[in-house]
């Protein structure tokens, strides 16, 4: 290890810690969100330093990109929607007041004791944990095993091999988690289905031109990454995320995307990845192999097919998260607004 490298890694780690601290302690939610997104970006650098470009891609795209968009979109809600208490209505700041975010860390004075307790126990845990981590043996891992079996797996990139072949079951479940989260968000929203509305203030001409131009490019990039996953960093997740962000961009620019699709297609899109996995798994069982086992000779093609389906589903679901949350509040908010106005007029 060269001192320069140590210095660089040390600096990155310090930055990570500081950003995390800031994200947790910032007085405003908005700042928290920004620090968190910055943390994600630095983290992506850290992944690269740790020779994990796949993870870096995933983190930057999903962990920071998608979640960042969702967080900031949520801030809009937390800032704008007033309490339903009608008395408080008049004291609310006028609409458009963006910078007044509810403070997140206002803490009643009675909570000193739990604070000390929590801090102390976390400190203790930290000591134990660091000791445990330092004690871990050097070396080990399954790199060798993964490499050895690479030939039989049908792909050349070990991470993809693990994701889709060795541990394909996890990936299947994970696509299931995405589907589940979508259902959960439906539950939380109390409404199934999407209601995209046109943005109240349309973006400028320039932006919509750019996004129109970018969308096909992004789809192309997604396809490229998918293909690349066979031999180099890339694959279903990264590609899916790019697809999803294409959708989010379109949506941000005010396009209605999901509403234009028939409901059945929406459902199919959400289910595609999960279903294709299941079909392959079942087929393998029927032909006397283990669940999710690929025949060696054709593993490459089959994996690509499954990956494509998974990518489409992932992209679609990620976009659906955003589309649902983003559109969720608007009709009702307007409705409320209309009702209030009506109420004001009567007396």
């Amino acid at each position, binding site marked *: *290890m060269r*001192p320069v490298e140590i210095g660089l*890694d040390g600096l990155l780690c310090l930055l*990570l*810690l500081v950003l*995390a*601290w800031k994200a*947790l302690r910032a007085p405003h*939610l908005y700042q*928290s969100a920004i620090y*968190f997104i910055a943390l*994600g970006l630095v*983290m992506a650098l850290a992944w690269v330093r740790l*020779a*994990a470009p*796949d*993870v870096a891609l*995933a*983190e930057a795209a*999903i*962990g920071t990109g*998608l*979640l960042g968009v*969702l967080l900031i979109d*949520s801030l809009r*809600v*937390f800032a704008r*929607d*007033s*309490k*339903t208490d009608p008395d408080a209505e008049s004291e609310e700041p006028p609409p458009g007041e963006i910078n007044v975010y*509810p403070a997140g860390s206002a*803490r009643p004075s009675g909570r000193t004791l*739990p604070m000390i307790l*929590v801090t102390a126990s*976390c*400190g203790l*845990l*930290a000591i134990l*944990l*660091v000791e445990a*981590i*330092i004690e*871990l043996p*050097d070396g080990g*891992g*399954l790199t060798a095993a993964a490499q050895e079996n690479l030939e039989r797996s049908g792909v050349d990139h070990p*991470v993809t091999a*693990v994701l889709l072949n060795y541990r394909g079951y*996890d*990936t299947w479940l*994970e696509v299931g*988690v*995405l589907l*589940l*989260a979508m259902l959960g968000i439906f539950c*939380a929203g109390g409404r199934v289905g999407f209601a995209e509305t046109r943005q109240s203030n349309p973006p400028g001409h320039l932006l919509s031109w750019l996004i129109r131009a970018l969308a096909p490019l992004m789809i192309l990039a997604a396809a490229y990454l998918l293909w690349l996953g066979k031999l180099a960093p890339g694959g279903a997740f990264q590609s899916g995320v790019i697809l999803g962000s294409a959708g989010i961009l379109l949506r941000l620019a005010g396009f209605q995307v999901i509403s234009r699709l028939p409901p059945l297609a929406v459902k199919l899109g959400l289910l595609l990845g999960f279903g294709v996995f299941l079909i392959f798994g079942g087929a393998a069982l029927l032909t006397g192999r283990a669940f999710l086992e690929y025949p060696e000779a054709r593993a490459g093609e089959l994996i690509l097919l499954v990956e494509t389906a998974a990518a489409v589903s992932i992209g679609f679901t990620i976009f659906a998260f955003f589309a*649902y*949350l983003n559109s*969720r509040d608007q009709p009702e908010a307007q409705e409320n607004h209309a009702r209030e106005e009506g109420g004001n007029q009567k007396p």
Partner: protein
Amino acid sequence: MIAGIETHQIYAVTAGLLFCMSLGGLFLCGHFFKKIIATKILGTAVFLLFISLGKRNAMEFADPVPQAMVITGIVVAVSAGAFALALARRIWRETGQSTFEDKP
């Protein structure tokens, strides 16, 4: 002394610290929004440990198994986070409640 430190160790220790910090944050932060952020950092810390463990061999290739697990983990964590956000938003809209303490 310094030369004996490996890259992965620096990151692994950072992961441990991050984990504890965000765990404390999860308990101490009041607002739903910050609690959600704390859970995300918690997840990131765990993933960091995984990946740094994969780098132990100081080879060109990092261990692919933890990488694959982390990619899976990130997706799972983001799904959970999105769900939590959706819930928090709904609660805020329905009741104006933004922490577990205040009862509107």
